[in-house]
Every structure is written in structure tokens, then in C-alpha cells.
């Protein structure tokens, strides 16, 4: 490989090809024919094999669909240019040392190309995930419209089951998990003083897997028989033997989203372990970096399990294997064990980065060091370890071995301890601070209070006898929305507002931000709090119809949910308007000490024009003359350790 000098990098990309050669260059002109080519290859191989084996019919819809859900995305990725560098390298062709020319975005068009700049990828992630957040939210609005009155009004049973399945799958796999990956992608390299992620090309590829997964899940509504309708949990044997072909769209969508998740997590791990700036020891890392570090470990260890579970279901469905078919010796409960061995840790995958964001925002906005920094980091590790020992608390009524229930209850309860440590430490950080209530802080405080309610209802659900009563009811629906909406989503909003000036170089509209917070906070509580009562009283989850005595409260919830949905418009309007017309942002509007705020907004193309030297802890607010890092320009304090206590 040719060495790249700094000048060449700034020289920009090679001149674009002209004429018919444009069809060969990576990009949207190459996508259609490459996708068609891969479709043809997939269909051709399938038909050939069926013909050679003498199977009838040669063209079978379900088989072709399954094969194409693998082949077509590869065609898309090859067309957009996801594999170009590696293919050239593998073929022995000269690799283009211009790769880093993809850094930075000069116009909006650059966000629709393969780009290896972590800052561009971070924004690609966030915009894409917000798109799917809005789509999944609209599905929820349709559901609430149907549920406003008992009986069936707008949709049929199959469609309704599809609505809540796709809503949850999009929110989890295409919004919460990748939105945190997007924020991390933008912020983590800056925070640790690195010029980019460790594997920029892998980073680009992992982003482009996301729209594939998202449109696959949304597209399942167009499949014959409708969308997958067995819930995002996709329990076998319902999902493996009683579903339309739309079910395979979910099985494969999870593979693409999961692969994206694993690649990003590996990238985070290697970046955090190997690319920290001089002086950035583990005990000097900001807590968001700690949070992404533990989350990435969770992703790398757990995600293969859901991949496996979905492959098993797909094999049962399409190839008539018998993993979960009891009549042929399969084991239906096996699915739930494998699924929850991923999906409980996934709950922490969806929460720990939020903990990190809350720690950053609360410390900066309270103008105080984070309380008990080391215990905060250690409690993340405790959650990581304990998170793998609690999966069967989702299965207290599932008919698993009865003796397993009490140990799983105890471990689930114990997780409340590190979580409690974090909550109490945030409160102690607030105490005696000089608190600035900007929008990120409002969302961070909203997160702490709502997450406490969600955590407490989690204690009810961890206690086996109460769980036996409330399992699979609206109480669970209320609980997950308090932890995933009140928890994860509030921290995502906090993070987006907090780093908006850094990402765009412009300031968001503070008044609209506050309006957005209050509409969301109130709408959220009015929508989800009454669901606790519905569940305890006897309304099961995942039903399109219910008994008339719950009618009034459901109408109330539906109206509140429409208000909650409308609050998103304020957010989207604020983002679009401020990105385009907002006032220019200062380099460090929050007077933060961490590294990403010590460079311009938006940061230079390779983040740091000078390599920072980390000399102290990241949260030394109130310590006179405290520095987290120094640059070459101010050598005089370089080697002096700043006292920390």
C-alpha cells in the first residue's frame, strides 16, 4: 500500500469517470444493475439446483424469496461500493490509496455515498435511525387508532399483529440500538483523541447494512400474506410454522441489522482499546466511552445468539427442519432460551450507552465532577456480567424447569444494585451543583426520573409471583416503554441536542427544544402510565380487541399517544430548521472539558490538527485550572498532573 501524505488527502478524489464508465463507478448508477445481477444469480442457482434435483415446482416463491433476501442486499452493497477496496485487494489490482478522500461531506449528496469518515457515518446513522423511528411511530399510531375502541375498526387481525411486530422490530433493531451506535460513532473517536475509527471501511459497510434491514422489515407488509405477525420476539412454533412468508423478512432483517451491530461493536472495541490519545488511561476515559466499551462487549458476545435463533426459525419455516417442531422431536422452549440469551443483554445494549450520555450531560450541566466515577464505570461492568445471568426471567410462566425461577429472580434483583448506584450517583452529582436547564439536561433529568419508574416496575416483574400475574399483559407494555422510551429514547434526545452544535456547527432552537421536551414528557406519561393498571386488571398484550370495560381508558391512551406522536414533529422541525439556518455554534458552548469540545464545531477533517495529550480526568469541574487534555500549543502544563482530589 502506498503511504498517504496529508497533502494527497486534501487533494480530493480522483476525477469522476465520464460516459458509460460512470456505470462502473461505485454509486447509485451501479446499484440497479448490480442488484439485478445478484438477483439473477440467486434465482439462477436456485432454479438450477431445483431442476437438477427434479423438484417441483422449479420456481417456488418462498424459496426464491428467502434466497433473494440474501442475494439482493449483497448486490446493493456491491453496487454502492461497500466491497470495492477489499475486492481490488483480493484480486491483486492496485488499491486506490485515495480512500480517505471520502472523509468529510462537502454537500448533502455525500451522505448518500459510501463514506469512511466516522463523523459522516455518525450523521448517516442518526438520520437513518430517526427515519425509522418516525416510521415505527406511525405504525404505533395506527395501532392506537385501532385500539381506541373495542371491536375491529381499521385493520384486520393479521395486519394488527403485523403492526405491533414491525413497530417493535424497527424501534429496537433500526432505532434504539443503531441510534446509540450513531452517537458513539460520531463522538467516541473525538472523545478519546483519535483521528477516526480503527476500521473506517468496515464502519461504512456496517452503516449500509442498516437501511437494508429496515426496508426489509418495512417491506414485509408488501409480501403475500402480510407482514411477520408473531411479535418482535417471534416465538416458535408460531413463527416457524404458522406465518406467511413475511416472517422470513424478519428472520433475515435481523441478520442484516445484527451483522451491522457486531461490526460496529468490534470497531468500537478495537478503537477504544488501541487508539486512545497519549495519557488517556482507562480511568481517564469519559463514561460514555466506558458505556460504549461495555455495550460493545455485550453486542459481540450476545448478538450471534439471536442470529442463530432466527436462522433456526427460518430453516423450520422454509426448509422444513424440526428445531422447534415437537412432533418431530424439536423443543419449542429452546427457541425462547436462545432468543432471550441475546434479548435480555440487548436490553442493556439499549440502555448502557444512554447511561453514558446521561453521565456526560448531567456532569457538564451541573458544573460538577461525576459523583463516584470509578464506581460508575465498575457498575457498568457489573451490569455486563450480570446481564448474561438473567435471561430466563422472561420465561417464568413459559414452562421451563421450575427450579430455574428462583435463581433467575435473585440475579435479576441483584442487577438493581449497580443500576441503583448509577441513579444515586447522578443525584449526588446534581446536589449542590450550578445546574443549567438546557434541553439536553431536561431530557437527562426526564430520563433519570422515568427510568426510576421503569426500574421499579422491573422489580415487580422480577418477583416471580407478581410476574406470574402480570406477564404478557399491558403491565409489561408499560414497563418496557418506561425503560426504552423514558430511558433509551430520552437519552438519545439528550445526546442529539447535546452534540448537535458539534455535529452541525450550528445551534438548535432552545425554545423549540424545551417545547419538545415538555410535550414528550407529558404525552409519554399520559400514554404509558395507565397501561400499568390495564395490565394488572386483565388486559393481555398484543390484542386488537378487548373487553368493553377497558374502552374509556384505551380511548384516553390513544388520544394521549397522538399528542405524543405530534411532539416528534417539533423535534424534526427543529432539527431541519436549525441544521439549515441555525446560528453558528461555538466550539464549546457547554464549557465541557472532554476532548470533542476542544476542537472546532464541526471538527477538522481528521479531528485533531495536533495530537492531544491527556493529563487529567474528564470531569474536573470546579477544580481551579483543571485540564483534561492539552495540545502542543500549550506545553507549559503538559507534564504536570492536575490534582484530582
Amino acid at each position: 500500500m502506498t503511504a498517504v501524505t496529508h497533502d494527497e488527502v486534501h487533494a480530493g478524489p480522483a476525477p469522476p469517470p465520464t460516459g458509460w464508465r460512470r456505470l462502473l463507478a461505485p454509486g447509485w448508477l451501479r446499484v440497479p444493475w448490480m442488484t439485478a445481477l445478484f438477483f439473477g444469480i440467486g434465482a439462477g442457482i436456485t432454479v438450477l439446483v431445483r431442476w437438477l434435483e427434479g423438484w417441483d415446482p422449479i420456481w417456488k416463491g418462498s424459496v426464491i424469496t428467502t434466497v433473494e433476501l440474501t442475494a439482493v442486499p449483497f448486490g446493493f452493497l456491491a453496487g454502492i461500493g461497500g466491497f470495492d477496496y477489499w475486492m481490488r485487494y483480493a484480486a491483486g489490482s492496485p488499491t486506490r490509496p485515495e480512500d480517505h478522500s471520502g472523509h468529510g461531506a462537502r454537500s448533502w449528496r455525500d451522505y448518500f455515498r459510501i463514506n469512511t469518515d466516522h463523523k459522516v457515518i455518525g450523521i448517516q446513522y442518526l438520520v437513518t435511525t430517526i427515519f425509522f423511528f418516525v416510521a415505527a411511530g406511525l405504525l404505533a399510531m395506527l395501532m392506537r387508532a385501532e385500539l381506541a375502541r373495542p371491536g375491529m375498526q381499521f385493520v384486520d387481525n393479521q395486519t394488527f399483529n403485523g403492526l405491533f411486530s414491525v413497530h417493535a422490530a424497527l424501534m429496537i433493531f433500526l432505532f434504539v440500538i443503531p441510534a446509540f451506535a450513531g452517537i458513539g460513532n460520531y463522538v467516541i473517536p473525538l472523545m478519546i483523541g483519535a483521528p477516526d475509527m480503527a476500521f473506517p471501511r468496515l464502519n461504512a459497510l456496517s452503516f449500509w447494512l442498516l437501511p437494508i434491514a429496515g426496508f426489509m422489515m418495512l417491506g414485509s407488509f408488501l409480501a403475500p400474506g402480510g407482514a411477520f405477525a408473531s411479535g418482535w420476539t417471534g416465538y416458535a412454533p408460531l413463527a416457524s410454522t404458522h406465518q406467511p412468508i413475511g416472517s422470513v423478512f424478519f428472520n433475515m432483517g435481523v441478520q442484516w441489522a445484527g451483522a451491522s451491530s457486531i461490526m460496529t461493536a468490534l470497531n468500537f472495541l478495537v478503537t477504544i482499546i488501541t487508539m486512545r490519545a497519549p495519557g488517556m488511561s482507562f480511568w481517564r476515559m469519559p463514561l460514555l466511552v466506558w458505556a460504549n466499551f461495555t455495550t460493545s462487549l455485550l453486542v459481540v458476545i450476545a448478538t450471534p445468539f439471536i442470529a442463530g435463533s432466527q436462522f433456526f426459525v427460518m430453516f423450520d419455516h422454509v426448509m422444513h427442519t424440526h428445531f422447534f417442531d415437537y412432533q418431530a422431536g424439536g423443543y419449542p422452549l429452546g427457541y425462547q432460551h436462545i432468543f432471550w440469551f441475546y434479548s435480555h443483554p440487548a436490553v442493556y445494549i439499549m440502555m448502557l450507552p444512554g447511561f453514558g450520555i446521561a453521565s456526560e450531560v448531567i456532569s457538564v450541566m451541573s458544573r460538577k465532577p461525576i459523583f463516584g466515577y470509578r464506581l460508575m464505570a465498575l457498575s457498568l461492568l457489573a451490569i455486563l456480567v450480570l446481564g448474561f445471568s438473567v435471561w430466563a426471567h422472561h420465561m417464568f410462566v413459559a414452562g421451563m424447569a421450575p427450579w430455574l425461577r428462583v435463581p433467575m429472580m435473585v440475579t435479576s434483583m441483584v442487577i438493581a444494585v449497580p443500576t441503583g448506584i448509577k441513579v444515586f450517583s447522578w443525584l449526588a452529582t446534581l446536589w449542590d451543583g450550578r445546574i443549567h436547564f438546557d434541553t439536553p439536561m431536561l431530557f437527562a433529568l426526564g430520563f433519570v426520573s422515568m427510568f426510576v419508574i421503569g426500574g421499579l416496575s422491573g422489580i415487580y416483574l422480577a418477583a416471580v409471583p407478581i410476574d406470574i400475574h402480570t406477564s404478557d399483559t399491558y403491565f409489561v407494555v408499560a414497563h418496557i416503554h418506561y425503560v426504552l422510551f423514558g430511558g433509551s429514547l430520552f437519552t438519545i434526545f439528550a445526546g442529539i441536542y447535546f452534540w448537535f452544535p458539534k455535529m452541525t456547527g450550528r445551534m438548535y432552537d432552545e425554545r423549540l427544544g424545551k417545547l419538545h421536551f415538555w410535550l414528550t414528557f407529558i404525552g409519554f406519561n399520559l400514554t404509558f402510565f395507565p397501561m400499568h393498571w390495564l395490565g394488572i386488571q386483565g388486559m393481555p398484550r398484543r390484542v386488537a380487541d378487548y373487553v368493553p370495560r377497558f374502552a374509556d381508558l384505551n380511548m384516553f391512551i390513544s388520544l394521549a399517544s397522538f399528542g405524543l406522536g405530534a411532539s416528534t414533529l417539533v423535534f424534526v422541525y427543529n432539527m431541519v430548521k436549525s441544521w439549515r439556518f441555525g446560528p453558528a455554534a461555538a466550539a464549546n458552548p457547554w464549557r465541557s472539558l472532554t476532548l470533542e469540545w476542544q476542537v472546532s464545531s464541526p471538527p477538522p477533517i481528521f479531528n485533531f490538527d495536533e495530537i492531544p495529550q491527556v493529563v487529567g480526568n474528564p470531569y474536573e469541574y470546579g477544580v481551579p485550572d483543571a485540564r483534561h487534555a492539552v495540545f502542543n500549543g500549550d506545553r507549559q502544563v503538559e507534564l504536570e498532573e492536575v490534582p484530582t482530589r
Partner: protein
Amino acid sequence: MRRGSVAQLVAIGIVCGGGAALVAILIPWLPDPASRQAGRIDFVFWFVTVICIAIFALVAAVIIYSVLKFRAQPGEDMDGPPIHGNTGLEIVWTAVPAALVTAISIVSAIVLAKNDHIPKASAAGDPLHPLVVEVTAQQFAWSFKYTGFGDLTSATLKLPLNKPVKLRITSLDVNHSFWVPEFGQKQDAVPGSWNNLVITPDKNGTYPVICTELCGLGHALMRSRAEVMPAQKFLSWAKGQQKKLGGPAGSSGKAVFTANGCDSCHTFTPAGANKKIGPDLDNLRQEAQRAGQPLEQFIRTSIVDPNAYVEPGFTKGLMPTSFSSLPKAQLDALVSYLAGGAKK
């Protein structure tokens, strides 16, 4: 911390805790318990609630107090005091929650063991000690079989008051879940395995049986009833039902009809059934004509193979296919009962 601020903090905490306690007490959260197990579950519920209200009050008080007292002035650029931690406090808020969740775990484990306890079958062979009921779930219906009463089956669950009942639960197709909110007990029905659930009903009445595990199209409609009655009444019902189902074809058709829950989806005037989830059986003759089959043959096929012909306006796959396993005598009785009762 000054004494005045402590007093204010405590006052806010009391207001928050009091408010939460009012919400907990004034709103009737729990269904009226109708089993001994539900009574014990309610105890755990309140035990946890008291602890949760205390924690909620503490957190809410600190947040509200901080928001009110530690607000920075506009334009202020001062920092707070650089407090990095406090080992004592950190030990307290690790140890106290650990103790609380340990207490909850112990209480829960004891209640779980009590709720799971099944009395040993009596030596005298008393069918009510305990009463064993086999619960079979299928898309989208429940069926209850009383093994101690000559395998008597019923589409509704009849239970004797104050007698321990052992439910053995299974499924014929996908996962379902048996739940009666008033009994507080729930158990998934999993194909290929028998799961146990113990209920000791202690209040007469009729309660809904609800499927809580997503099982397909008709999940929301998969409901039945649990009827609790005095033991004597239960015994006479069971004996009477045994006699009816075993009687000659002409007389037992109606019993087969209700015992298999046909009335929970269909309208059929002679049986007093009036549900509209499935086709109206009063119009069987017209429906047979549409299907182009003789009446009796049409009825028989529609019971054992419901998807062979689906009446326009109804969803294929909604009616359970398991009635193909009805004993021949009962099937014959049901067909002639329906053919005889259909409107001319």
C-alpha cells in the same frame, strides 16, 4: 448541609411519597382475588409497593429539590464544588438496595413455594383432592378435561370452591398461555409438554379465561370462562354431564355442542348460542348450497376439515382443526343435532 435544607428535602419527600401512596391506595389496582394464590400474590405486590414508594419518594425529592435550589442564574459561569465521591455514601447506597432486593427475593420465593404446593392425592381416591383438570389449548379455543370423571370434557372451566385444583396444561399447535386475572395464576401452554399450575378458588363466581401468549390471528378472541361453584354443585354438574355426553345420539348433540365450545363463536338458536365470530349455524342450509354439498356431508366436513370451504366474509384458519379427533359417536350426534336444528 444546613438543617433548614434537610427539613425542606424531607418535606418534599413526604409530599412525593404521600402522593404516590394515594395513587397506590385510591386506585383499585388489583382485581378482586378469587383464589388463595391470588391473595398471596397480592401480599407480595403490596410488600414491593411499599419499598418502591419509599425509593420513588427519595429520588423524586432529590431531583425536585435540586431543580428548585441549585438552578444556575442566567449567564452565571461558576462551577459547583468539586466533590468526587463519598465512600460512606457509596457503601450505603450499595448495601441498602442489596438488602431490600434480598428481602423481596425471600418473600417471593416463599410465596412461590406455597403457590406451587399441590396436596398429595388422597388414598381414598377422592377426585376432588386434588381435582385434576387437563387444559388443552389450540388456535383459538380452550378445552378442559376432567380425568377423574371419565375424561369428561368441557369448553368452560368449572371448579369446586375451596378445593385445590391441579391444572395440567398443554397445547396442540403453538404456544398459548392460560390466565384468569382473578386467580392471579398464569402458565404457558406449550406443544409437546405438560405444565402444571395450582389454583385453589375461594370465591364463587364466573371469571374470564384469557390467552396471554400471542398465538396467531384469533389471539384476542381466544377466551373462555371459569366458573367457581360449591363442591356439591360441581359434583352434580359433572355427573349430569357424564350422563348426557354418553346418551343416545339424538339427546347428546346439544351437550357435545356446548362441551366443545361451539357456542363461543357461532350463533345457533336451538342451543341458545349467539356469537358472531364464526358463520351463523342457523343458516347452514344456504351455506351448504353455496358450498355445493349435501347438508349432512357439508356439516361433517366443516367440523373435521374447516378450511375445505370457508364461508365468504370469514377468515380461513380461524376455526380450530382439532375437532377431527372427536369420538365418532359424538361427531355423529353433533352432525345430526346441527342438521336437525338448521332453519329450513
